[in-house]
């Protein structure tokens, strides 16, 4: 293997890790959102189900984002530097969200049955709502191609706020939030043991499925204004992979909704996860070979081959440990 294909491979692993984060940790955030919107006569049971579903796995799910960060700064250092400099503000806010979500969640589960517990629960739920918004906005900012180096004399706002404070980035944030909520609701239909609770989450899944369509449409419309996300607009409409990809996203999305409608919950879970994954890969392909458009490509930013080679070896060895361990974790807590 050469340095070139090695760097490509690592870029693929970065995307896989991001994909895993979205599909797994994304649903944990979505669960927090449903905690916030818990309602009806089964309110407390809904909350209990959400908490029990998240508790054993959220820390493991969370590590995927750390893998993304580590791979970026090891293998594509200029990308990490640009990202961290220009997006300092939304990333810091997202971190505060991550800290509050995780700690409020754990505090709540140890303070059962009183006012304090309710307060921690509220904080957990609100942090779960805000963090995906910011995460989505960060992805949106990168996709929009406006994460460019700060220009001396351009002023604070132009350098550190404008790149991410755009309607498009915000729309992607809302889209991410809807997607995560949708994922969580679909997963919870599978986790729920009692039919009435399952029905609660089926309704929520269907409703948030509609919201996913609407928010996707908004983001897409905004991206077609070339100035907002030129590459993404082009990639989503003109590139050769565009049509098959869009068709498959539509197909899995419709499958997920139909499966929910006909109460085929296992199938719905599969389709929902596939939907999120395909959307992410669609984004990745649309901006290939750029990691941060308009200028930072995989090849131009890749670390030397010594590093890439070692990281590939480490990834291979790590996977040997990781895959069976993860399989065991999920079999233990998620099989039914």
């Amino acid at each position, binding site marked *: 293997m050469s340095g070139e294909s090695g760097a490509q491979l690592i870029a693929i692993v970065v995307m896989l890790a991001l994909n895993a984060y979205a599909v797994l940790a994304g649903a944990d955030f979505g669960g927090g959102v449903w905690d916030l919107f818990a309602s009806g006569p089964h309110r407390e049971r809904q909350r209990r189900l959400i908490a029990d579903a998240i508790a054993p796995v959220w*820390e493991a799910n969370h590590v995927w984002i750390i893998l993304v960060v*580590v791979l970026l700064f090891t293998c594509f*250092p200029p990308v990490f530097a640009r990202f961290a400099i220009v997006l300092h503000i939304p990333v810091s806010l997202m971190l505060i969200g991550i800290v509050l979500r995780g*700690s409020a969640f754990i505090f709540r589960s140890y303070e059962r049955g009183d006012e304090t517990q309710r307060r921690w629960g509220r904080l957990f739920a609100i942090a779960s709502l805000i963090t995906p918004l910011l995460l989505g906005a960060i992805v949106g900012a990168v996709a929009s191609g406006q994460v460019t180096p700060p220009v001396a004399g351009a002023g604070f706002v132009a350098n550190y706020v404008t790149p991410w404070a755009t309607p498009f980035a915000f729309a992607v944030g809302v889209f991410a939030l809807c997607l995560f909520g949708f994922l969580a609701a679909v997963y919870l239909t599978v986790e729920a043991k009692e039919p009435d609770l399952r029905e609660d989450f089926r309704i929520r899944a269907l409703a948030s499925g509609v919201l996913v369509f609407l928010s996707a449409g908004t983001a897409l419309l905004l991206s077609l204004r070339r100035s907002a996300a030129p590459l993404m607009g082009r990639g989503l409409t003109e590139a050769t992979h565009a049509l098959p990809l869009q068709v498959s996203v539509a197909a899995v999305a419709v499958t997920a909704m139909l499966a929910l409608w006909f109460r085929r919950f296992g199938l719905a879970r599969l389709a929902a996860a596939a939907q999120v994954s395909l959307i992410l890969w669609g984004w990745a392909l649309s901006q290939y070979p750029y990691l941060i458009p308009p200028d930072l490509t995989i090849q131009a930013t890749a670390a030397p081959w010594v590093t890439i080679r*070692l*990281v590939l070896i480490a990834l291979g060895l790590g996977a040997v440990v*990781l895959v069976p*361990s993860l399989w*065991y974790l999920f079999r233990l807590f998620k099989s039914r």
Partner: protein
Amino acid sequence: MSDLLAARSQMAISLAFHIVFAMIGIAMPVMMVLAERRWIKTGDSVALDLAKRWSKGAAILFAVGAVSGTVLSFELGLLWPRFMEFAGPIIGMPFSLEGFAFFTEAIFLGIYLYGWNRLPPRAHLLAGVLVAVSGALSAVFVVIANAWMNYPTGMVLDGGRVVSFDPLAAMATPAAFPQTLHMLLAAYAATGLAVAGVHALFLLHRPDNAFHRRALGLALMVGAPAAVLLPVSGDINGRFLARYQPAKLAAAESLFETQSRAPLVIGGFPDVAKKEVRFGIEIPGGLSLLAFHDLNAQVTGLDRIPRDLWPPVAVAHVSFQVMIALGSFLALVSLWAGWTVVRRRDLARQRWLLRALVLAAPMGFIATEAGWFLTEVGRQPWIINGVMKTSEAVTPMPGLVVPLLGFTLLYVLLSIAVAWVLYRQIVRSPVVIERTLP
């Protein structure tokens, strides 16, 4: 406040916060596993109860450790993008390996904490062992990265530019061994003795409570040997500094002049302007002896270091003194406890020992913070010793005081919350009267 100072302070606060939870994440699983093993071996139900309660308390601390660690991985870039851009490919290796250690730790932690009723006891115990091993490995890997910052190896430089490098040679920096050993021992000592101190407090009121008796014994089993070994391992660190980071040692000991038969200064406060230490006790030749195991050896002083490359002497000096003072106390208390066990006396009835243990409870953590302040502040003005200055590494974004204040507030509130939740966990501990007193 300058942006650089704000960034340094934010880094310091985030790390000082994280390290407490990280150390607990390293040592607590060992104690939980020992308690559970005892239950499996002897059927002692008190030990099982203890393992469960410890793991409940630890779950809170693990979660806070995980989220504060996440903040750190991003902060490396948010605050020091130029450093990461330079060093990422060189020391990314230990960070990547650390990532895998986090994965196994988080996975088996989930299995351990929530799998009490889903796994056979031995499989459950094995999950605990894996948590303990991966916790120790995460510490080893991240401290290797730090060791490289202190003594960078594995690269060929040409006027500040890297010509070539080898990540494995970077990991093999000679600073790695002393630092990782010292850090691991510190984690076991600090956590073990802190837990012992909490249970000692209960035993002062009820020496016959089997729950706390078991807890004290197990916690000391982890904490005491490590605390006795720490000064020995610290001596290796000190000798390493003497050879490889003379500026740090000179600052720690406020040695302003290079000299043979250098004195060891105990306590005191350095007056940098006058180049002397006030109120310190000097032991002639002591520093030469410690640094080179030779009374007459020459020790490099600050006079050999250009003035603009001096680390903040007072911080380094005070940190070093605090670490040594607390470390000596911890080692003595641990020896005392060991001696009590050797003489087959009942630990829970040695009221003075229990009092000393209560006093010692926070000391390991304070010593660790001091040790890290020595390591990190003593490296200044360098972020990579001799290669890159901290001021060259900082992000160009202005207004860094704002995130500093934000994260400081976050951590202060979080500390209060953790203390409160843990306090409520601990006061609910059970009263189980020991029937067959030894």
